[in-house]
């Protein structure tokens, strides 16, 4: 059986089995791979994984070979570093009938606004104009998504891909960030997926020295965020909203 196991970023080697499968077809979002390499961050840890990940894909697969971490090319002083494209399998389940379901975490890819609208409907959010949604996504500092990819056993042609979670953050790229629109499909809640989304956002923001991370939580999720390290009204800091008179 063909299978591809991608390890999470904390381990910096990539183990590829059974190299006959086409990796590119597993990528949900057709990124420009060169983009990912060229914009390697100076933070070695994360960039090492990314460089090795993409490099190993491009350099071809060797059976049962542990790919070594490749030093990313040192860049000239680049002030504006965009958040990197990143995609990895967060969870993989194998069902008794042989079908697999992967939950894929991704940042930097394109989102289908119709899928997002459908997801917002599922969690019961009021509808917002699609054009505004698209603009908001495009101009957010970072958009993290979770997709479920279900593969039936046997042929690879019946992959079902579904958007099951999203979180985004706006930022001035230097000091402040606000996290908006965090949602996980009700059928996938309770598994730590929301936690993974938020932690990823925080990690990415802090690594860029963006220390003021704010969000506005509905009453029923305040505890969820508290468990993730957020404090309500810290030192009297409050968010106020504008109301036209």
């Amino acid at each position: 059986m063909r299978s591809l196991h991608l390890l999470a970023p904390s381990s910096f080697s990539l183990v590829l089995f059974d190299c006959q499968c086409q990796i590119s077809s597993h990528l949900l979002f057709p990124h420009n791979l060169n983009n990912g390499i060229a914009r390697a961050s100076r933070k070695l840890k994360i960039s090492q994984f990314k460089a090795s990940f993409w490099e190993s894909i491009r350099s071809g697969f060797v059976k049962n070979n542990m790919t070594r971490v490749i030093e990313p090319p040192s860049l000239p002083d680049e002030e504006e570093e965009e958040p990197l494209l990143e995609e990895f399998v967060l969870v993989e389940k194998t069902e008794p009938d042989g079908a697999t379901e992967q939950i894929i975490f991704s940042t930097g890819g394109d989102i289908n606004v119709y899928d997002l609208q459908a997801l917002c409907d599922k969690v019961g959010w009021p509808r917002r104009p699609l054009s505004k949604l698209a603009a908001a996504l495009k101009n957010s500092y970072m958009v993290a998504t979770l997709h479920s990819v279900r593969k039936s056993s046997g042929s690879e042609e019946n992959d079902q891909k579904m958007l099951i979670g999203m979180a985004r953050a706006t930022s001035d790229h230097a000091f402040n960030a606000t996290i908006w629109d965090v949602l996980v499909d009700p059928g996938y809640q309770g598994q730590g997926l929301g936690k993974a989304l938020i932690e990823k956002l925080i990690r990415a923001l802090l690594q860029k020295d963006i220390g003021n991370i704010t969000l506005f939580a509905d009453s029923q999720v305040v505890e969820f965020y508290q468990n993730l390290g957020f404090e309500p009204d810290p030192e009297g800091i409050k968010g106020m909203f504008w109301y036209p008179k």
Partner: protein
Amino acid sequence: MATAASAEMKWLTTPTRRRRPDQIDKKSRIPIYISTNPVHVNPQDLRELYSTCNHSCHRFPRLDQLGRVEEEPVDLKRLQIALSHSSILVSVFCNPHHVTTTAINGNQRMNPMADFVQNLFPLVSPTNGSLVGFGRAVSDLGLTASIYDVMVTPSLQRMGIGRMIVQRIIRMLTSREIYDIAAICSENERLFFKSCGFGDDTLSSTTMMYTRTISTCHQNDWNVKQAGRKLLLIPPCPASRTSVKTNKS
């Protein structure tokens, strides 16, 4: 953000409230120049304004015993990055002469004639004026916006400059149909924003900030990042969670 940046001159009236009972209650008008053109913001002048206003880029700055911000002046490069990624920048300039005399004298005029002549030909502009007020907003240009760093030099406070800045920001946002405008403010800024038309969220959301530090966490190995006086904990990367085999019956 491609904006039709505007710049205009306005007249401000110094506060009429008497500072002392014996003081003559004289209004004086000073010209100020308000601009939304990012080009007019000089990062070095802005950095100085932060210090003058005792304002920090960090939400939790180190403070001395008197409550003054006690940290290095903000890094110019980072400030420039923040400015270039702010959707709206509003800056207010004033004739340097007015900044100091107002500070010293409050309502009193040092030399009425000099003031009169000066005000006949108000030549304040971003190039010859001092930066006395500032405000910026970060937006996703679709749904939401957040206002940050609204500040006015102490000698010219309570004259409506701050409110002018906020109203200009709001006007620019609403002209782009963004109505979800948030301002994250500390306790002593709340009254100011309230007077600008801000209030608590109607949906009663709770404002929360990431404040997890080593002391508030039970993790064993950690990476931290300094933000003001807080040493924030960076969440670890997810442990390998692949190949979870479930037997769905």
